[in-house]
């Protein structure tokens, strides 16, 4: 078995072992390969963090694992539309340093997804992929920002 499959299988076993204990507390509702025959494509579902304007929403993501993972980061995108300063609205592309320049092989798919859940609640408006959402924050319009996010969460993430 090649190194990437061995590593992914290990992560999968770890996820299955901890599923019962962590599902209730974590925002990560689901994280699994799309198909048992292909360990390089995964899907994830996360709940909008409580107390955030994403609360109540369920967000789906796709994860493409490169063949030299974990030396290189996985490619993770939102499938569900999400309004967030660091997510491109049209494509779901995520701007998060650990997915790019600050990736370390110490991350797992699970810890990476949890970092994305954390990003939902901690936007970084100085490096935006969604300038309109970022501008509301940059001008200090917290109310306007949260209303916009809540609206899009309701439209796209609460079916």
């Amino acid at each position, binding site marked *: 078995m090649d*190194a990437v499959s*061995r*590593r992914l299988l*290990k*992560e999968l076993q*770890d996820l299955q072992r901890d599923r019962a204990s962590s599902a209730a507390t974590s925002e990560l509702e689901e994280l699994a390969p799309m198909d048992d025959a292909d360990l390089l494509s995964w899907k994830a579902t996360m709940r909008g963090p409580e107390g955030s304007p994403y609360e109540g929403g369920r967000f789906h993501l796709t994860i493409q694992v490169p063949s030299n993972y*974990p*030396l*290189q980061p996985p*490619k993770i995108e939102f499938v569900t539309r999400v*309004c967030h300063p660091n997510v*491109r*609205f*049209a494509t779901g*592309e995520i*701007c998060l*340093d*650990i997915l*790019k*320049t*600050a*990736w*370390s*092989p*110490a*991350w*797992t798919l699970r*810890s990476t997804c949890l970092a994305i859940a954390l990003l939902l609640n901690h936007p970084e408006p100085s*490096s*935006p*992929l*969604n*300038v*309109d*959402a970022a501008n509301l924050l940059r001008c200090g319009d917290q109310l306007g920002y949260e209303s*916009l996010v809540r609206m*899009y969460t309701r439209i796209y993430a609460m079916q």
Partner: protein
Amino acid sequence: MTSEQQTTPTGKEASVDVSDEQILAFEQEVKDAEARERPLIGELEPLSALYSEYERGSPVFCEKIKALDREYQGFRRCRGDGNCFFRAFAFAWFESALSGDDTTLERIRQRLTATKQQLLDVGFDWVALEDFYDMTVELLEMVARQRGQTLTEAATLSNELRLGFVSEQGVYSNAAVVHLRMVASAYLRAHADDYLPFLELATSMDQYCAQHVEAFGRESEEIHIIALTKALRSIVNVVYLDGSTANDGRVSVHPFDGTENATDATPAITLLYRPGHYDILYNRTAA
């Protein structure tokens, strides 16, 4: 590294520029091009091979290489893929274990085994790191097994080790690189108060380590050498081959001594540093 794009919430993009993925892909291409030119770890070469590269260039380099030739029997090239310090260290460290006496091998084995606890102590997720650790241990043991069997010559063992480093697209030596990066990172995280004040651009040790120490392919600086030698209680002598004419044009040697006392020392490793790159140097007395 962030692309600012005028994206509206309705998804209309006013301008398109180069994405981070494209930049990363381009950087990877440059590294891959280098990879095709040089093996991860080369064979032992005389310093005259290095001299010929500079013959028509800098006279300062030429003089320094001649001086090195008198003192060192040769050098071994490492691929310049950003991991050269860690890969050179791993090779030279294991090579010293294999060519030394049983005490040296046992000592290096113990230092390597002890790193597992060092990583767990700073809270790393073992699921993510155990493969790298296991493969690093296996890389050493593959050759150590042959060492025990017969009166195998040191040069043969070195060559077996080299094969272990380059075979299967370097999957074992890449694992060793990752593992040693995590060991250096764990040391810095455990001693954050001592080292953070010296890291100008870092906001936190966690952030610095993830971005500059753990990231595969990220170039090493002095702090990486300090951290690794301290964590493994080893000695690295870095021989600086640069265009400087200070010190009467002699090459300067910077020792990094991570030992705690003289009795637990393992053989010193000598690396040849040219600005931006590390190779391995061999003393005339050794081997």
